[in-house]
């Protein structure tokens, strides 16, 4: 992951086109899987490719102007661009705002994937438990648990997205987790 920041810093200082292209190619091969996961978890599968491509183009366009200096800042910046592109997609579709993947869709994906790689019973139980936690959560808690634990967004990224402070997000997440668990047990 340190490799990502090295590429970003070098890209910002580079003026030659061929060097920029080679740095950008290496960088996008590293960040593409996470950003595609983020896009595909937020938009219908048939729109995932187009939205991912828009995200990559927007990041490439602004990369020279990215002002941060840490990996955390870089990912937060990438996710901000991704969120904007996902929102643009929903605006064009006149659909609802950005929502996490609904539980039924999640389980359908997991069940469907069993044909390629079967889950061992213990893992299946763990995933069922995780699904129950999400299902029992209030919508605002579902959103937080999904973003932090499933997508992997840091507290700071969620705080910036929802205009909350870091500690509010941390405390709210802990409460949401406790609440969901208490509803299961």
């Amino acid at each position, binding site marked *: 992951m340190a490799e990502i920041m090295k590429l970003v810093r070098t890209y910002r200082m580079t003026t030659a*086109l061929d060097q*920029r*292209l080679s740095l*950008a*190619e290496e960088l*996008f*091969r590293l960040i*593409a*899987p996470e950003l*595609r*996961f983020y896009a*595909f*978890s937020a938009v219908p*599968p048939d729109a*995932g*490719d187009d939205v*991912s*491509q828009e995200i*990559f*183009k*927007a*990041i*490439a*366009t602004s*990369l*020279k102007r990215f002002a941060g200096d840490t990996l955390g800042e870089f990912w937060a910046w990438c996710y901000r661009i991704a969120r904007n592109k996902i929102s643009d997609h929903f605006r064009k579709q006149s659909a609802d705002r950005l929502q996490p993947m609904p539980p039924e869709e*999640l389980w359908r*994906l*997991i069940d*469907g*994937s069993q044909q*390629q*790689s079967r*889950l061992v019973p213990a*893992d299946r139980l*763990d*995933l069922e*438990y*995780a*699904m129950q*936690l*999400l299902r029992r959560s209030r919508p605002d808690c579902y959103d937080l*648990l999904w973003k932090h*634990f*499933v*997508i*992997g967004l840091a507290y700071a990224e969620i705080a910036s997205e929802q205009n909350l402070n870091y500690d509010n997000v941390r405390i709210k997440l*802990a409460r949401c*987790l*406790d609440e*969901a*668990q208490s509803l*299961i*047990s």
Partner: protein
Amino acid sequence: MPKNNASAESNLQKLGQRLRHIIANSHPPKEVDIQAALGAVREEWAKEQEVQRQKKPALDLIKPQEREPEEPDDNR
């Protein structure tokens, strides 16, 4: 059976890993995505060159007598 927070967190993270794996297999990154990003890099570079080109003639147009006199050389 009730679980503690740590295992609830780890189960949710496991769900994330499983979904990453599923999405990476069912929708793998495509060459066209990378090429689209590289296309945007080329466009940005061309815009920068254009801005540089527009700045340069403006500097060249300043007549030599309008330029500020050079500082005298200390060695002279």
